[in-house]
């Protein structure tokens, strides 16, 4: 169905993909894995001709999709063969309600009206969107938007569907909905699906084969992942325990796990020592018009605590962080950090008390080079010159003369962290910090945050990262706290928030703990 013949793609003399020869047969779900910057997106965009027709660069070799050479067919002429859904579905929406968005590609293909109506109905049913048909796209949740984007690609009846990180921005429940819909396409319609995803623990089990980039190796999912620098915890656990063949789903792993469970001792449960709270928030309420985003939340954050706030998209996590920091809206309630309310402080002093890294860290950057950003951070916080640079060097190696936009996600996050940490805040708040980070980058972030002096609160959907890093977990729903306790207790008691290792081995949370205990 899809054939890459000796494909090399270069941007400005720099090869992104080199000598890739791959064949993906019809009806297969192929998972593309690799570290950030290994060329996953480029590979996906080459399938429908966006590379090089849209992006520029040169492509040597041949890409054939359903027999069509992408050198001669630009993306618009491949629209009836390849459906493409990019990383940010919202930015790709053309219409403003669900039905019109679904119909858009069919209008471009010039299909007759009755065919369009039939296909829109089919797609609404297939993806479970029937109740949402008249809704404006902007009012949908993240998971619903992702399903609409997939549906909009499907109505053209393409033979290939290409998905670039379909679940990265979604909470675990919404991600499952999207992946169930994708699996249905593969099973029922025989569609060929190519997915790139950082959160492998979510998708690996559905894939038929995996392609490792930049090497271009294709094979059994388990084998490829075991050899890859990125792998979900279940694969890492299998390697530690020496299981063969390597399982990729929790279910397969459980079959191997009986003997391992017997060998493992009871995990040491240390009761966290009570700590002096650095941040006390009481009865926080945030209202936007009639919507109560946060409804009377109270929390104490202790010195050195690492707290993860979890919950569905729209459960009030971000609003809570912004309200606590003091820059966002707070309808009522009090916050006290060392006796002062951060909201009463000037922004410059506020960030030295409570710092917040927002969901789009790049919003904080506006200068041309990393060095300038660092100098600016020193000036803003009144620290001696070079403070920010020193912090940054402790976090990651980031070239000083690069434009911040040219950095990788991980490097950019490190830069923003360094900028915020220059003020040495008592409390650091992070909103979705692991978006766009691969496993090694997440490990680096976890160890980096563990070594910080300040208390850290982060809002995230990433259950594996929480298991790795957090000491305490707060679960929010509908603007209220529904669970608050030590990480182990909270995540193991919930099927949605449990990490893979705990699903396999019960009380254990991470591969590192298991390895240490063996």
């Amino acid at each position, binding site marked *: 169905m899809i054939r890459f013949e000796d494909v090399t793609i270069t941007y400005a003399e720099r090869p992104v993909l080199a000598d890739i020869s791959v064949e993906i047969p019809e009806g297969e779900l192929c998972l593309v894995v690799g570290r950030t910057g290994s060329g996953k997106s480029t590979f996906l965009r080459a399938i429908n001709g966006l590379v090089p027709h849209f992006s520029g660069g040169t492509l040597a070799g041949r890409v054939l999709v359903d027999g069509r050479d992408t050198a001669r067919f630009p993306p618009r*002429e491949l629209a009836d063969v390849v459906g493409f859904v990019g990383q940010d579905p919202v930015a790709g929406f053309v219409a*403003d309600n669900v039905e019109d968005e679904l119909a858009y590609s069919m209008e471009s293909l010039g299909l007759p009206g009755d065919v369009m109506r039939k296909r829109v109905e089919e797609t609404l049913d297939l993806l479970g969107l029937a109740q949402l048909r008249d809704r404006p796209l902007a009012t949908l949740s993240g998971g619903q938007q992702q399903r609409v984007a997939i549906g909009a690609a499907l109505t053209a009846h393409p033979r290939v569907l290409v998905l670039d990180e379909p679940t990265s921005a979604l909470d675990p429940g919404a991600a499952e909905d999207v992946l169930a819909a994708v699996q249905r396409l593969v099973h029922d319609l025989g569609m060929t699906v190519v997915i790139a995803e950082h959160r492998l623990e979510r998708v690996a089990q559905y894939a038929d084969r995996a392609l490792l980039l930049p090497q271009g190796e294709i094979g059994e999912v388990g084998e490829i992942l075991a050899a890859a620098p990125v792998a979900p915890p279940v694969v890492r656990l299998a390697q530690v325990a020496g299981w063969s063949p390597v399982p990729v789903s929790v279910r397969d792993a459980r079959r191997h796990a009986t003997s391992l469970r017997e060998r493992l001792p009871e995990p040491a449960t240390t009761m966290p020592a009570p700590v002096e709270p650095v941040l006390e928030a009481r009865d926080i309420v945030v209202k936007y018009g009639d919507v109560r985003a946060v409804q009377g939340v109270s929390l104490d954050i202790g010195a050195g605590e690492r707290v993860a706030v979890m919950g569905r998209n729209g459960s009030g996590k971000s609003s809570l962080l912004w309200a606590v920091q003091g820059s966002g809206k707070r309808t009522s309630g009090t916050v006290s950090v060392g006796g002062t309310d951060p909201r009463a402080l000037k*922004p410059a002093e506020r960030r030295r008390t409570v*710092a917040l890294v927002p969901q789009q860290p790049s*919003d904080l950057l506006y200068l041309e080079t990393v060095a300038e950003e660092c100098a600016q951070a020193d000036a803003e916080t009144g620290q001696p010159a070079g403070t920010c640079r020193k912090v940054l060097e402790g976090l990651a190696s980031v070239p000083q003369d690069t434009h911040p936009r040219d950095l990788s996600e991980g490097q950019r996050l490190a830069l923003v962290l360094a900028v915020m940490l220059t003020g040495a805040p008592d409390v650091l708040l992070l909103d979705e910090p692991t978006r766009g980070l691969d496993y090694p980058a997440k490990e680096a972030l976890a160890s980096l945050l563990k070594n910080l002096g300040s208390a850290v609160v982060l809002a995230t959907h990433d259950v594996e990262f929480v298991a790795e890093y957090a000491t305490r977990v707060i679960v929010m729903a509908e603007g209220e706290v529904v669970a608050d306790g030590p990480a182990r207790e909270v995540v193991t008691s919930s099927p949605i928030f449990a990490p893979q290792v705990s699903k396999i081995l019960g009380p254990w949370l991470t591969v590192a703990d298991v390895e240490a205990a063996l």
Partner: protein
Amino acid sequence: MRLHSGAWWLWALGLATAASRTTNPLMLGLILAVAGVVVVTCRATTPWAGTYGVFLKFGLLVIALRVLLHVFLGGVAGPTTLFTLPQAPLPHWAQGIRIGGPVTAEGLVFALYQGLLLATILSCVGAANALANPKRLLRSLPAALYEVSVAVVVALTVAPQLVASARSVRRARQLRGDTARGARAIRTMLVPVLEDALERSLVLAASMDSRGYGRTAGISKRDRVLTGALVLAGLFGFCIGMYGLLADAYSGWPLLVVGAVLAIAGLRVGARRVPRTRYRPDRWTVKAAGVALSGIAGAVVLVFSGDPALSPTTVPLQAPEFPVLPALAVLVALLPVVIVREA
């Protein structure tokens, strides 16, 4: 069943035309009330339905501006001087313009009437906006203009996106403790906002490209050039015709007709070569025609009515009289309330 968006726009333009023919505050008030009643009863629960209030507020602002302008710059004089502002001396070549000076009751009332006229026209546009999605109207354009209309629709979303992105950058800026003002603040805002806008538009362009926008599927280059040339020539002719009509009421007509014929011919020929279709196009129904005609009725009567009560004199000041026949004609525009109820 959704009415054709064009019907609502014709209805509103009819009301606006009626409003433009009178300065009688009673008539203007009636038109405002009619538009308001129809909006409140007929609008659907859509995000753009809430824009009506914005237009009303904007109308109030226009009235205030018109009155202020009159107070400072004068215009209509009259015998009843209310108060006198100090007058700025101007050189004699600026004769006829004054700044400051006496403010008369007659002039104020005149300015109020004119402000009200503009506000009423604005409220009619606001009503159309609330009743029918303007984007939907663009989708009803002839097929030959398909690509242009999609581009306009996309461009319409840019403004709200820029506002949203500016807001998030401003919030982020606070997080950094950067409270710079003036030129530096503009720079620190502008760079991320523009970068964001640029990035978004690239993503959108890639998405549209992958979904078949601008597809030529089997049409030869010669045909495409011909289509483009015809459509452009037609529109150009139409524009010249319109200009002629506005510049000189009579010599404009033949130009307009020639332009319109050219445009329609161009669009027709173009449409045959465009391999695109529409999903659930809005259709003209009897009800849609009824809505459109009910709005136009008022306009026709007011344009041809010579009732002196339509423009009440302000020098000397007089209580405005109520023109009965034009008022009845405007009330016809309430018909959509009945029509939509039944739909």
